[in-house]
């Protein structure tokens, strides 16, 4: 699995591909800069190869239940509760349609 870590430098094509995944449109100068800077970071993190992690459970969260209680999910009753007013939520929208029955966000046409 570690063969990937050896390819530490990033090509400009890789940077463009990652930018597309992240919905970022980078300028040519940024692509060049990020290829180098991200390459530096990826080279540094190669040090993790030295650590034997066989059988080690990954940590996704440090939340732990109170001592003496069993781990459990956090749940609440599925009941209708007050929420933010639609008009207040829409107030920050770049484009919106305020309607008496609620209103909505406006975005460019999606389906031709």
């Amino acid at each position, binding site marked *: 699995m570690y063969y990937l870590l050896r390819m530490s430098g990033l090509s400009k094509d890789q940077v463009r591909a990652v930018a597309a995944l992240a919905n970022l449109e980078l300028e040519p100068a940024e692509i060049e800069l990020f290829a180098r800077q991200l390459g530096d970071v*990826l080279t540094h993190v190669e040090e993790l190869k030295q650590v034997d992690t066989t059988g080690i459970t990954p940590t996704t969260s440090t939340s732990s239940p109170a001592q003496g209680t069993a781990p459990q999910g956090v749940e609440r009753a599925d009941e209708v509760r007050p929420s933010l007013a639609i008009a207040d939520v829409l107030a920050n929208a770049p484009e919106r349609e305020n309607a008496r029955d609620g209103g909505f966000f406006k975005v460019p046409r999606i389906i031709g």
Partner: protein
Amino acid sequence: MSAPATISDLVKMSSAVENCHLALDRIQAAAALNAFNTIDGDRALERAADIDRNRARYASAPLAGVPIAVKDNICTRGLRTTASSRILEHFIPPYDATVVERLHAAGAVVIGKTNCDEFAMGSSNENSAFGPAKNPWAVDRIPGGSSGGSAVAVATRMTPLALGSDTGGSIRQPAAMCGVVGLKPTYGRVSRYGLLAFGSSLDQIGPFTQTARDTAIALGVIAGVDPADATSASQAVDAYEGALTGNVKGVRIGVPARILASGVDPEISRAISTALDTLRARGATVVDIDLPHAKYAISVYYLVATAEASSNLARYDGARYGLRSADTDLGAMYTKSREAGFGAEVKRRIMLGTYVLSAGYYDAYYLKAQQVRTLIRRDYDEAFRTVDVVAMPTSPIPPFRIGEKVADPLQMYLADIFTVSANLAGLPAISVPCGFSAGCLPIGLQLTGRPFDESTLLRIADAYERDTEWSKQQPPITS
């Protein structure tokens, strides 16, 4: 006798309005430090007047009439919250973060929103779309970051309390660099509801104050379970102020000598040694410990934090709020809004996080980092079998000159070596002023404790303050 400046001082003052004027005057006098993105003077004065008119209602409120500052990545209803980003330059939250609600209920008056690195990504406050905040001890230097403005506000006595957020040291490191107390609580101790998410498994909100006592008061107000944050913890909240007994006899302090040998500024090393001598003289025991995986903390942190950030920041797409490009094609609207709205460091971290989560790289980077994160946690678990707290410098370097490290992000990341572990392990950690360099730059001592044992950190910090004068020093800009 210095001007009233701590929570304990200000709460005794009879006029919230006067407190507010004092804060606004100090902000004005030190405007060149760029500590605030938004000042809410009129509404703060209105609210203060309301408190003064209804004093009886606030008789037992721990922060009645105390002006406070809030980092600009924490939502305040009706008050612009930008995260120091162009993409949220005009964003006005329709709700208050839980911490802000709790501070209001305690009688605090929010006076403004403090400057920070964009979306809390940085250790210098240079990544703000609104220009860097400046260190009041040397205005050509960084105040630290990401919560730089909050540290400056407290250091210059603008407000006795400011909130910050800490994902990898963003409260503790600026606290150290500005000469104030900064606490990152245990993960889950304080609700994150209303904090603009960066690394959700790492983020915690915490206070900046001048003294450990004020931090105890502030933590008592903001801590506790919150139904709006499923990761907030149900453990009972300690009586933190009651823990400040001055007694540290028998407290065991562990010093991870091996990791400290890896390059700490000699003046900082000396200040830490002297601080430990002071605590020893009060009856604490100082012992060597080993945290064998601490040296990998930077690599683990910058993989985990950027992965989480790349997901969290996907929401900023120009559709529902924030900056939107004028494109009529939806895809172009997303990408161009994000290109125009995000600064370089934010883009860099989104890119890194997207890369390490992408198909074919997930196991080698993200999963591996999460496994080593487990080992870093276990090191602390092991250490806490024999010691009560772990002591380290907060930062291995003094505040550097603005612009000095901008070109080399990796070098900047490496300076977070002593702070990121507490976030990875979910532990509480505090930075306490413990001296100055020959050039009069503040130095911070960091203490890391067991989960939910903020009381011990505060007790040690308070005891240390009783024997030293560091917390009383004021930067030249305030005199």
